[in-house]
């Protein structure tokens, strides 16, 4: 076993909180894609898309940080033991940030696929409008949200009081 194996062991452990993160991110990104693909008839379309993307970014970031916080709560003692054995803050941050990016990234991809399917279905009621740029933009929003949400938790995880966590 090496550091990568150890990280992988923690990242691949998908529990309820990770599943909720994936589903939540997918729903947010799908809604973002559907909404952004149909700019209002009047007014500035790019401002509207920016507002929708910002909302999606915030929702994904908050959701991912909540899910990762719950994961951190469950893994507090293990993190404390790793730190006690000499793992640096960087190792702990990598575990949480990688997992957040994986969960958010997976959710974003599923969300884009769902969004595209919904837009095609809605074609019956109007002209679908999604381009490669819009899909890439939506994936970027999802990934950025995952990084922002994960980074907050990763920093908190790396600053846990080791003595308190291993005493629990």
């Amino acid at each position: 076993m090496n550091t990568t194996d150890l990280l992988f062991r923690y990242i691949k452990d998908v529990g309820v909180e990770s599943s909720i993160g994936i589903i939540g991110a997918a729903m947010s990104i799908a809604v973002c894609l559907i909404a952004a693909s149909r700019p209002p008839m009047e007014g500035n379309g790019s401002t509207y898309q920016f507002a929708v993307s910002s909302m999606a970014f915030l929702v994904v970031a908050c959701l991912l940080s909540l899910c990762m916080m719950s994961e951190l709560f469950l893994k507090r003692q293990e993190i404390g033991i790793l730190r006690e054995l000499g793992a640096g803050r960087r190792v702990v941050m990598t575990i949480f940030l990688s997992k957040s990016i994986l969960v958010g990234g997976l959710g974003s991809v599923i969300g884009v696929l769902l969004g595209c399917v919904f837009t095609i279905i809605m074609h019956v009621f109007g002209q679908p409008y999604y381009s490669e740029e819009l899909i890439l933009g939506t994936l970027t929003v999802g990934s950025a949200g995952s990084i922002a949400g994960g980074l907050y938790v990763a920093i908190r995880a790396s600053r846990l009081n080791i003595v308190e966590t291993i005493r629990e």
Partner: protein
Amino acid sequence: MEADAVRIRGLHKTFGKTVRLFGGLNMTVKFGEFVAVTGPTGAGKTTLINLISGLDFPTEGSVEVFGKDLSKLTESRRASIRAKDIGIVFQNSHLLSKLSVIENVQLPLIFSGSSNDDRERIASGMLELIGLSKKKNLFPNTLSSGEIRKVAIARALATDPALLLLDEPTSDLDTSTVDALLPLLRGYNYLHNRTIVLATNSLKLARLASREIRLGQPELVVNAIQG
């Protein structure tokens, strides 16, 4: 002249406003010495182990390990010292349930930067030494408490640390397991000339050490309790 392994000066540790430990403790542990820290429950034996390992910090005073004041080092430097130079065995063993026995033993070797081949070889060797090589692929929840403690000791010794910290390593173990562990600890100190600080309430274990440091009762701040 070589620095002491552990040098503690004017140590005070306060918990909340009510409990004060150590009362300005001064102690020195020389390289290759085997010291037993004894004292009543609540005297601060585990806290002292935490302070020496850099997991906790004194309220007053200084704790120097290998000539370095731990509270003045960066967190990554303290982690590096723990990974390479200090082996710790805690009362609750602290094995990770997700990892197999051999993977648990490999953990400190990962953080100390050993190569893949070394990690496998050293971890297998340590398990052979404690007689658990046949159980190397099992998970901790399938082991007895004695075996778990042995794995924790093997893990602490895996990096061949210059300083071994043991916190009640034989609590809730049967006599035969304790008898098997004692020569291992004595040999590590005597044959390998490694420093051992052992926190224990066991007289049998304390007798192994070349010196005993007895901690006093914790000081209770009465005004704070009443206030």
